[in-house]
């Protein structure tokens, strides 16, 4: 299942969830992830419910995760400083660590990468800043993503790709995602794997890996 791992429909954006699903389907996606209560299928496109937790304290994350998590719900936590990231990556029930590009450079290091691999937590690659930012701000994001790819080449933690679209005009096609991910050194196989990660996170087919 090719999935856009986070979209923000109405009222956060200007496009309804159904319209977002319709357009995502036309752009080559099989499913989208959105912050909704229940999962559904619209015009053949699966809508996966997500819980996005934005906290700066790992204990609060743990509390909210117990309430938010459920069967079929993809749980995402916004990344923070290094200690926070290491702590949340160890909390069971977490699926995706997102917005790593917004944190300081050393916030996601080799220890966090190793933990992500062993706990089977995906790191989200947000394509929104690559599309909408320009100049130094985009350069910084590119640098962070290239750094993540360097760590990934060693630890092989899962990745997800998201457009973080608030409008259907912010969605990008699967082909466009291949092109954009090429900017950070991802090859076709890696992009394909990242697009299909969401399904694996909800229904893990393999046990978590121990990394030495």
């Amino acid at each position, binding site marked *: 299942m090719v999935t856009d791992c986070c979209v923000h429909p*109405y009222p956060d954006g*200007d496009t309804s969830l*159904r319209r977002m699903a*319709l357009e995502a389907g036309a*752009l080559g996606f099989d499913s989208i992830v959105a912050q909704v209560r229940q999962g559904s299928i619209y015009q053949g496109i699966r809508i996966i419910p997500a819980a996005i937790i934005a906290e700066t304290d790992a204990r609060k994350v743990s509390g909210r995760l117990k309430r938010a998590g459920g069967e079929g719900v993809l749980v995402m936590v916004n990344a923070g400083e290094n200690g926070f990231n290491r702590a949340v990556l160890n909390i069971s029930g977490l699926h995706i660590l997102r917005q790593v590009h917004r944190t300081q450079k050393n916030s996601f290091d080799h220890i966090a990468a190793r933990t992500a691999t062993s706990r089977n937590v995906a790191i989200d690659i947000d394509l929104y800043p690559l599309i909408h930012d320009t100049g130094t701000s985009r350069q910084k994001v590119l640098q962070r993503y290239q750094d993540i790819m360097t760590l990934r080449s060693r630890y092989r933690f899962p990745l997800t790709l998201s457009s973080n679209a608030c409008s259907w005009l*912010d969605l*990008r096609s699967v082909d466009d995602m291949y092109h954009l991910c090429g*900017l950070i050194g991802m090859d076709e196989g890696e992009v394909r794997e990242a697009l299909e990660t969401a399904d694996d996170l909800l229904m893990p087919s393999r046990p978590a890996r121990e990394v030495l």
Partner: protein
Amino acid sequence: MKPRPPTLRTKKRYILARIDPPGVEIGPRDLYYSILESLTSLFGDVLAAEAGFILISCESGYAEIRCTRGLEHQLRTALSTVTGVQGKKVALRSLATSGTLLALRKRRSRPLPPQSEESGEWEILGSVYSARRYQGQKVDLVEKGIKGQELLFLTQDDREEF
């Protein structure tokens, strides 16, 4: 002037892109500068010059673009980073790449989306929107008012919820 022999000519590639949302009115000059700005911002002046891109046509919701062979991937990447033209929010969807304009136009042969049709007024949270329905389910709402006309993109099925 004697034309250059074919072996010395630069090989070209042609890209077909759809302009979303349907019906948006943008001038070819504005679109050209938006694409050029995206290309330059992403890959720099050197590659933008090498790409030698030109906008062949921009009509009926499609844009035909020509560039140097070998740089079409970079140009398609740049097209995906175009988010607006002259303040209007647009998205360019690359549909096909071809070696000749004729082949590209054959790829475009699928029927163009039918023109939108007015489908009454919707009232959402106290605001009145005029609705344009097209391609079956899709409904675009434009807020009625003098300034700050908000856009909403829904489907026909959303009507009951809103």
